[in-house]
């Protein structure tokens, strides 16, 4: 299916993509598209956008950040963010990692087979627990849905389209929750899952600067995207934030990546400016 007139990439066309991707170097005008930052983006989408940005920063690949109200509908997979490189459009972290690898940039090349398995496993853990918990809180917790999700998600549109789109998305997420057995979960249990996931990440990280010691990998980018977003997003209550703040090495980890990969970047580009961990109470 064609969207936006670009050549869309599905995972099934991997081989084809690696062939053509390898030929062309990373262009100057590579662009990442994401939803509007201040009034539209939701917790889970912001986490995914930040993860892809962090990954590209870590690879030292320049990319222009463009915010569009209809980013979700421009994306070939219906999910944000997506990058537009040359004549190709790739959405979400997994395919972006593959695509960038085909261009000869990889963060995980130095890992041995066992470490690669471990990296993939922890990435699935983050997607399986943190991302699902974020979606649950946004769309299945009535208070959050009413106060935050609904007004933000529908902000670019006028009634009745706004209500229709919210309802459509809500039903889609509920269907997914039902299929994976989360429909009957209570909010408390979801917070417990988040805590369990953070505990696992905290123990795995230990005192190292990154998950595989000196060099960051795509796992670091993914974890950073989610945890940084949780730490800097104001929800109806602080419970989710507090779960992450309990683990001081994870907070320090977020700050480290922010300093190393986003603060220099901010100076020469004004496009991503709202990345800042609040100083103060979280510092030891």
């Amino acid at each position: 299916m064609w969207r936006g007139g670009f050549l869309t990439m599905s995972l099934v066309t991997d081989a084809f993509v690696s062939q053509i991707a390898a030929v062309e170097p990373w262009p100057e005008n590579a662009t990442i598209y994401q939803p509007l930052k201040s009034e539209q983006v939701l917790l889970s989408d912001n986490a995914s956008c930040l993860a892809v940005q962090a990954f590209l920063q870590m690879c030292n690949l320049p990319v222009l950040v463009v915010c569009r109200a209809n980013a979700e509908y421009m994306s070939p997979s219906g999910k944000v963010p997506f990058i537009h490189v040359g004549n190709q459009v790739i959405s979400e972290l997994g395919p972006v990692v593959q695509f960038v690898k085909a261009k000869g940039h990889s963060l995980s090349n130095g890992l041995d087979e066992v470490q690669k398995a471990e990296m993939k496993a922890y990435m699935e853990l983050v997607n399986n627990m943190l991302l699902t918990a974020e979606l649950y809180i946004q769309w299945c917790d009535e208070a959050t849905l009413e106060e935050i999700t609904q007004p933000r998600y529908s902000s670019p549109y006028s009634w009745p389209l706004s209500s229709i789109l919210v309802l459509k998305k809500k039903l889609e997420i509920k269907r997914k929750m039902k299929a994976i057995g989360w429909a009957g979960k209570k909010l408390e249990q979801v917070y417990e899952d988040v805590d369990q996931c953070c505990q696992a990440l905290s123990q795995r990280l230990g005192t190292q600067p990154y998950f595989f010691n000196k060099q960051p990998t795509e796992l670091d980018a993914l974890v950073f995207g989610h945890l940084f977003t949780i730490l800097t997003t104001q929800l109806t209550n602080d419970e989710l934030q507090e779960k992450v703040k309990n683990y001081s090495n994870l907070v320090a980890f977020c700050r480290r990546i922010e300093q190393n990969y986003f603060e220099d970047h901010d100076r020469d580009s004004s496009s991503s400016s709202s990345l800042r961990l609040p100083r103060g109470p979280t510092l030891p």
Partner: protein
Amino acid sequence: MELRYWGGDWGLPSVHPECLVVLAYAKFGGAPLTLNPVDYTWASSQGIVPILTYEDEIITKPANILTFCRKHKYNADYVLSAREGSDTLAYIALLEERLLPAIVHTFWVDSDNYSSVTRPWYASRIPFPLRFYLPGKMSREALNRILVTKGQPPLYSMNEVEAQIYKDAKECLNLLSNRLGTSQFFFGDTPTTLDAFVFGFLAPLYKARLLKVQLQEHLKQLPNLCDFCDHILCLYFTEHAEDG
């Protein structure tokens, strides 16, 4: 503690991956289970199996049952460090996201395997007239789960979704094989939760006599994973290993 589960066949104590996870963990942790296989009764009509009943408590889902066993001192994980406990959680997420969809597809969605292996097996253990309804319902639920969780754009046709989940599963098997290496179990010399999950998910695939064998063939090319299954069967489930 009483466990309701789908019974054994093909040289396995249970043909159902999630039941097998629980059975294996109970053996590893030494939990005394009263086994109650689903067999010609109406009690299975809800189709939620495995179920553990202990006094007044009813626990479903393998992860919850394993946590319950651990709380009651039947713990196979006491040898693990905190870091290894975290790894266990991560690998289970990997198995559930990458491997399970293809296993479920192999048994419940693939029409050749479903009509020649899965449906006859389950139907023979479900009373009339439910036997004509329940296997179909389980198959539809399996398909629905795969479509809802994996079948998003840009994968528009079932063929594309299938190609993707089998590719993921084969990659996952390779990762597991690399992770296991030449060790006997995933964390040294004693089996733990992760071993129960890997065994539970792999053993039915390894032992079933399927018509469509693409994932099975891939597993059989990874001798350390096959040996791992055989080894656990031989150490903990001798009575079943013989007739397989």
